[in-house]
């Protein structure tokens, strides 16, 4: 993938900050079930953005990038489940 086709770092940062703000909003205002799903989804999105946007690991190894995102998804899903079932 060419550099010119990559999303600029500043755009990645803005999306990361927006996702963080949305996570905090979800944590304070949503009911447990929805909160768990929203926080898990937003957290996986942030992890994927760091790996693909900042590290740009997909250029060097798709397998390594996929493994890192998969690992983050596992932890975030467990966190989301714990939040959703805590009602």
């Amino acid at each position, binding site marked *: 993938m060419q*550099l010119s086709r990559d999303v600029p*770092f*500043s755009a*990645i*940062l803005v999306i*990361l*900050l927006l996702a*963080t*703000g949305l*996570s*905090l909003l*979800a*944590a*304070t205002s949503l009911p447990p079930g929805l909160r768990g799903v929203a*926080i*898990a989804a937003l*957290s996986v999105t*942030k*992890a994927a953005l*760091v*790996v693909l*946007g*900042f*590290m*740009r690991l997909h250029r*060097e*190894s798709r397998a*390594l990038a996929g493994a*890192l995102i998969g*690992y*983050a998804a596992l*932890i*975030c899903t*467990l*966190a*989301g489940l*714990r*939040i959703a*079932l*805590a009602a």
Partner: protein
Amino acid sequence: MNVAVRSSGLRAAKPAATEGGMELLLWILVWSELLVFGALLGAFLILSALDPAARAILHGALDLPLAAVATTVLLGSGFFAARAASGHRPRWNLVAAALGGFAFCALKLTAFGHELPVLGEMEGHLPELYWLITGFHLAHVLFVAVLLLVVAWRPAPQRTAAVATVWHLVDLVWLLILPVIYLG
């Protein structure tokens, strides 16, 4: 990951092989760190599910707005590290990333000061795990921020890329700590 030895000459092949070896070591370090933090976060999730009362007290003591500011600062420093690794004024971007790391440490220590009175009175393993996970992460941030400054002194592309990768690992771990500990 590029571990191929491109040159046919032995003298030229040696640095490339060393480079590949260093890269492999770097990824072993990254994954070992992720596995340690994953085990700690898994234990935290299990304990917090088993003891909802302790989780509620812990959650009440945490300073969520300060954690949000710390997250913003850490993500901002990741932005500077990414710029350094892509060759944009590596020295200044590495210094900016390190300053973000030190600011994160200051914010986290301030949060610890707020949380200590409540968490100090709690019994059980949940607060201990909280201190262990966040303290261990804080130590990583501090150590790698110093490393960023050391690399900024003479920012060779290979070193800059390596230290930026470790810095992004620190970012990634914090993004996993956030939903498990703070947002639940």
